[in-house]
């Protein structure tokens, strides 16, 4: 297959030759590796890559992926990271409108009619910057002679992949993992991996989040080897009976083999002292459905995030251990009862925050230290819930939320604000995805990637379909998808309040943003159909967060008021060197000559961009502490 640059213009081409999304488990070669969480089957490709920047597709180094291409003029760039923060490409912060506002007149493909495909919009876009990345690697011994795939955890916004000069595949969806099978293209010794990253594609219409607009490989990249037998996917459902005493564990495993699917599958459930409380041994098969009853199960919740560990061990026909897959399991039941969301039979109160991934030095390429710090801030301030606004976060964040009992509203990578809200008014004349069939598969794929990757995390209580994208058949299809695949969680989407025709088909909860407390009370007083959640409230821009009690007072008055998520966790600003004093200073939108821009509107955090708390945080601690 040949890579086509026209895919950038086509909303119906968003994944080519990608492996199907699956659970975020990790395979290890031995039990000891699993305990140490260091898999010899994984080879990181983070670090220095060869790199060439082009200001537009016409100036890109065509054919740079060929093994004999002369790349002597390529620079070096660190992966993961944003191209703009390495000095290539202009930094821009913009909120609702698209980054080309005031520069190019555009309408999304097919939004003005089925005969309007808008060919060439991005493939010939004079401001669609291109990053050409090249990485040489030799497989580690443990990966040699195995099936090998490559995982890109985040590439913004469209990427083409080649190995040793051969085209491998194409991906959009900047914030979901993209995985490709490299096995057919690998060679002994040196391999040449090439990635071409375009800043814009039709995905741009779906990724109009209120944030700095970046490009590049901004999350980790790794090679992953599959042993002779391999767990491709696992679905863990850990529930509890009506008395909240007896746990009900159901595990579905999907296995693959390098040739014949023979061997043994040992599955155990360990308690937190490492003692096996359930074990089963089965013949290897393409699909295995296992179940167990756990007496006196220890339930998972915010205050007691108790985790069991499921351990899957695969042995080949000779009985040799070939893969160990551990996964942490939290038993809990989340359900709607009498129009109130309950966790383990208790009314859920969301003391939440919206969290963009942000690091003032690194942009959205946040570090483990950033995430650990954020969890500590949550713990110290009675924050019990997080909305991953407005895209899936790094995988590790979900594991941290499992371990620390942080309830997650796990949001898709979707925001098309600029297609329906203009000058602050609802104006959906060219909304995408809307009900356009040409855009539906792209958003469904995003829903699927989000579900498959994070379906086993007890912390995820709510799937959020996206943010501020209006409502139509396509988002209704996303809602249906989640309900079809996952009976253990509820769906959330605020945008349906802009188009009530879809109220029955979208979102299990009434969600609003920035509604005044009296308007919320009015809703709650009038026998509403759905419980209420503030998906965004208490806009903490600058010196703000006054009057929080007007919201928290509703908790004790109305059972169907279930709290919300403060906007937001951390200011988005960037450390730069002051052009006058040479000192490090924090800069925001418009400070990079970026126009059209939204200036300081990105500074709405409970934390300053350097992660020091704003004074308002003590107020959050106080009010969230009242209902923790």
């Amino acid at each position: 297959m040949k890579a086509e640059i026209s895919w950038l213009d086509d909303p119906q081409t968003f994944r080519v030759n990608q492996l199907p999304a699956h659970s975020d488990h990790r395979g290890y070669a031995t039990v000891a590796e699993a305990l140490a969480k260091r898999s010899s089957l994984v080879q990181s490709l983070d670090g220095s890559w060869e790199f060439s920047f082009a200001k537009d597709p016409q100036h890109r180094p065509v054919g740079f992926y060929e093994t004999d291409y002369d790349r002597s003029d390529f620079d070096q760039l660190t992966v993961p990271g944003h191209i703009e923060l390495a000095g290539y490409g202009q930094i821009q912060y913009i909120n609702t409108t698209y980054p080309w506002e005031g520069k190019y007149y555009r309408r999304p493909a097919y939004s003005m009619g089925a005969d309007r495909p808008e060919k060439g919009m991005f493939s010939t876009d004079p401001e669609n910057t291109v990053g050409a990345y090249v990485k040489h690697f030799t497989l580690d011994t443990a990966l040699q002679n195995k099936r090998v795939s490559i995982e890109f955890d985040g590439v913004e916004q469209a990427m083409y992949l080649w190995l040793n000069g051969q085209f491998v595949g194409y991906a959009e969806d900047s914030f979901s993992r993209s995985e490709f099978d490299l096995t057919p293209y690998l060679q002994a010794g040196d391999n040449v991996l090439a990635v071409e990253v375009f800043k814009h594609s039709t995905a741009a219409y779906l990724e109009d989040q209120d944030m700095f607009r970046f490009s590049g490989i901004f999350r980790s990249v790794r090679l992953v080897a599959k042993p002779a037998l391999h767990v491709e996917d696992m679905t863990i459902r850990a529930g509890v009976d009506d008395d909240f005493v007896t746990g009900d564990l159901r595990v579905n495993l999907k296995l693959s083999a390098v040739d014949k699917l023979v061997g043994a599958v040992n599955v155990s459930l360990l308690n937190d002292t490492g003692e096996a409380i359930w074990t089963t041994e089965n013949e290897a098969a393409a699909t295995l459905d296992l179940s167990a009853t756990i007496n006196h199960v220890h339930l998972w919740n915010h205050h007691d995030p108790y985790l069991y560990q499921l351990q899957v061990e695969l042995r080949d026909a000779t009985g040799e251990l070939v893969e160990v897959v551990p996964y942490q399991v939290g038993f809990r039941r989340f359900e709607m009862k009498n129009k109130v969301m309950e966790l383990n039979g208790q009314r859920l109160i969301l003391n939440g925050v919206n969290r963009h991934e942000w690091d003032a030095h690194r942009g959205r390429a946040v570090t483990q230290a950033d995430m650990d710090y954020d969890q500590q801030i949550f713990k110290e301030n009675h924050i019990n819930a997080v909305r991953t606004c407005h895209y899936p976060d790094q995988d590790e964040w979900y594991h941290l939320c499992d371990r620390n009992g942080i309830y997650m509203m796990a949001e898709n990578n979707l925001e098309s604000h600029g297609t329906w809200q203009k000058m602050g008014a609802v104006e959906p004349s060219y909304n995408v995805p809307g009900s356009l069939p040409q855009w539906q598969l792209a958003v469904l794929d995003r829903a699927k990637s989000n579900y498959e990757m994070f379906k086993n995390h007890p912390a995820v209580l709510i799937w959020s379909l996206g943010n501020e994208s209006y409502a139509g058949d396509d988002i209704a299809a996303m809602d249906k998808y989640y309900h079809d695949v996952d009976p253990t969680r509820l769906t959330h989407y605020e945008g349906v309040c802009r188009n009530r025709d879809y109220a029955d088909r979208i979102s299990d909860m009434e969600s609003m943003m920035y509604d005044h407390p009296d308007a919320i009370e009015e809703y709650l007083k009038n026998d509403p159909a759905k419980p209420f959640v503030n998906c965004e409230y208490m806009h903490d821009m600058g010196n703000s967060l006054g009057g929080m009690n007007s919201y928290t007072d509703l908790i004790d008055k109305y059972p169907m008021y279930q709290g919300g998520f403060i906007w937001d966790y951390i200011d988005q600003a960037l450390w730069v060197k002051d052009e006058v004093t040479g000192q490090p200073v924090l800069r925001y939108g418009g400070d990079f000559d970026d126009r059209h821009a939204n200036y300081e509107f990105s500074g709405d955090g409970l934390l300053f961009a350097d992660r020091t708390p704003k004074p308002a945080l003590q107020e959050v601690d106080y009010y969230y502490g009242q209902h923790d």
Partner: protein
Amino acid sequence: MANTTKLNVIYGDETLGLSGPGFHYIFAYDRRGLESLVQYGKEWLYRTPNPAFWRATTDNDRGNGFSTKSASWLGADLFSACTQIDVAVDGQPIQLPIAPVNNQYSDHETATTVAVKFTYTTTTTPATTASVEYIVDGTGKINVNVHYNGATGLPELPAFGLRLVMPTAATGFDYQGLSGETYPDRQAGGRPGTYHVDGLPVTPYMVPQECGMHMKNDWVKVTRATTLNNADPDHQPFSLTIRQTGHPFAFSCLPYTPEELESATHIEELPPVRRTVLTIFGAVRGVGGIDSWGADVEPQYHIAGDIDHDFSFEIAGVTD
């Protein structure tokens, strides 16, 4: 027991001097305010204190148009003039003792208390008045009474207080009140206690704005270690204390005036820290939080322009 120490009163030609052991204050008729506040040889005033009518626009103020609606208070903060001065000795009003009225006095005048009141006429339309009365006793204690005359047609106030600008930057301040930066609509999380703050921190909001407010205080003590006096080589810390008189007060202690904060788009644009701006507030507007593009601060946290506002505090003397 009542303090019976007498104040020395110096009936100057342009000023009224008041002194006692360890303090010397000068009220200047030409400067139209309290020009000098010296305790133990250290000057505490850079310029005469003035009523504070403005706060640097917050992001929420900008979003909901409050600063636009109340912009006349920015002019009033900068340009309101003192239009009347009244002096009373031991409770008895006297004719303003400028030359030659002061020829009737001697070089050894004393009093139990002296009150000097400055009345300011605002630059707003309509205009109104505000007054600041200083009542000094023999210990150097100054009771300060601040009054705002409400007037129909005036917009809501961003703030109402008295601003004291000190000649050099403080090394820090101590106060008994609530932890952290608090406002009327954001103080539930403030823990009562006694706190020390190093230096004069400006809360580093991305765009400099109103900040550093402390609600519900019994007292605040500002400490400096330097003066502008070329003959004063001493760098030992020295302090001035403000106390409540019946009602807790709010204050901020910053290196900048609201107008300096107002003009900057980034914190690095603020000038070098040179002075201390201590503002004692009798009324503080809330910061709001519902959104930043139109939602008003909740009504109970507004400062009405058409009703009177009063507050009092004391500047501690030298013997207590």
